[in-house]
């Protein structure tokens, strides 16, 4: 399965997604510019992505903790999610996301 990730510079990368992995882990392990400071503990919001229309609605709704964190970012949009809270599975094959500016490393 594949996911398509647009980085902060606007370049799109096709990444091999792994079933059961967190989207954040795939983006991080492929070396894209994602800070993911808390390692997926849903406590930092530095894995913030925008999920493209059509895919956003397929995701299970965010937990209250994820929503709280998203509200703490400067660049939240209606299609914002934390990529560490998106578990990859076959039905997300082809999902398109864009890294939020606030996810970039220093």
């Amino acid at each position: 399965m594949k996911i398509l990730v647009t980085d902060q510079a606007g370049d799109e990368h096709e990444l091999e997604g792994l079933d059961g992995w967190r989207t954040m882990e795939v983006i991080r392990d492929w070396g894209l510019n994602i800070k993911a400071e808390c390692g997926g503990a849903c406590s930092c919001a530095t894995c913030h992505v925008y999920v493209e229309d059509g895919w956003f609605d397929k995701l299970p709704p965010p937990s209250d903790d994820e929503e709280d964190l998203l509200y703490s970012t400067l660049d939240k949009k209606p299609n914002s999610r934390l990529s560490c809270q998106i578990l990859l599975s076959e039905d997300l094959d082809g999902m398109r996301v864009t890294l939020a500016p606030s996810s970039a490393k220093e």
Partner: protein
Amino acid sequence: MSTEITTDVVVIGAGPCGLFAAFELGLLDLKCHFIDILDRPGGQCAELYPEKPIYDIPGFPVVTGQHLTDNLMAQIAPFAPEFHFNRMVNSIEKQADGSFRLATDADEIFHAKVVVIAAGGGSFQPKRPPVEGIEAFENQSVFYSVRKMDDFRGQDVVIVGGGDSALDWTLNLQPIARSLTLVHRRAVFKAAPASVNKMQALVGEGKINFLTGQIAKLDGADGQINHVHLITDAGDLSVPATRLLPFFGLTMKLGPVADWGLELNDNTIVVDTEKFQTSVPGIFAIGDINSYPGKLKLILSGFHEAALMAQAAKAITSPGERVVFQYTTSSTKLQKKLGVA
């Protein structure tokens, strides 16, 4: 006037690797002072995952971040390291006699023969809330921590957040503030249940104003706020406020480490693998902050690095003295230092 402290070793960062360094240095009779921007020891273990289990600490099939921190604190207690929390090390300068002078943002000066940088992923710093123009009020009427309670006496205080910091300061400041409003996005809190109950009791007595909503805008001039505009479930509101304390969590920033003139590699400090010394003799770097071929960012690696660093540090503080290698199991000398023999 600034406070001046003289010691053998200053350790920057009280994360797990820095804490264990105090043990290895203590066995060699070196006295440590810790400086950390957080208000407690543990670094990432205490701040990012206190309740999460760690499975790869030798001898502990499972241990939480907080439990590991507590155990490290107990292990180093015989050496009585001194802790200076809530301050950031801003600068390190080498002196003519080879020692170092460190300055913190709390106006203290430390003199040390050796400096150990155990700054991990960088210094934890408060996150700025998404409110336009907030920078103009920072450190005058908007604060991200409470350093002096007196700054809040007789003020109209607004606190934003739903975690322990927000609740603790709501309870601490309520008796001295003129008015106190707590704002959180929802009526569910991540703080200790006892604090939440106390806060709710004070709301019931009319001593605290609690609102569910978000801050939208600040009004004021010359660094002084006078109103906080909120978007609440019940509509837009403007609350009189002379002090704002937003608790939006912390983030790690490399911070001043980058300006200390040390050789860096992608935001980490280059060290050798014999002593874990940086490009400046006498300054060592251990744990997540350092880089060398094959580096693994694991707590285990930092412990190993601390042991080798301590031997090299001793050679600097006591030049010419022969350090005899000893085991803690069999050396009565070491056991005496640990207070067990």
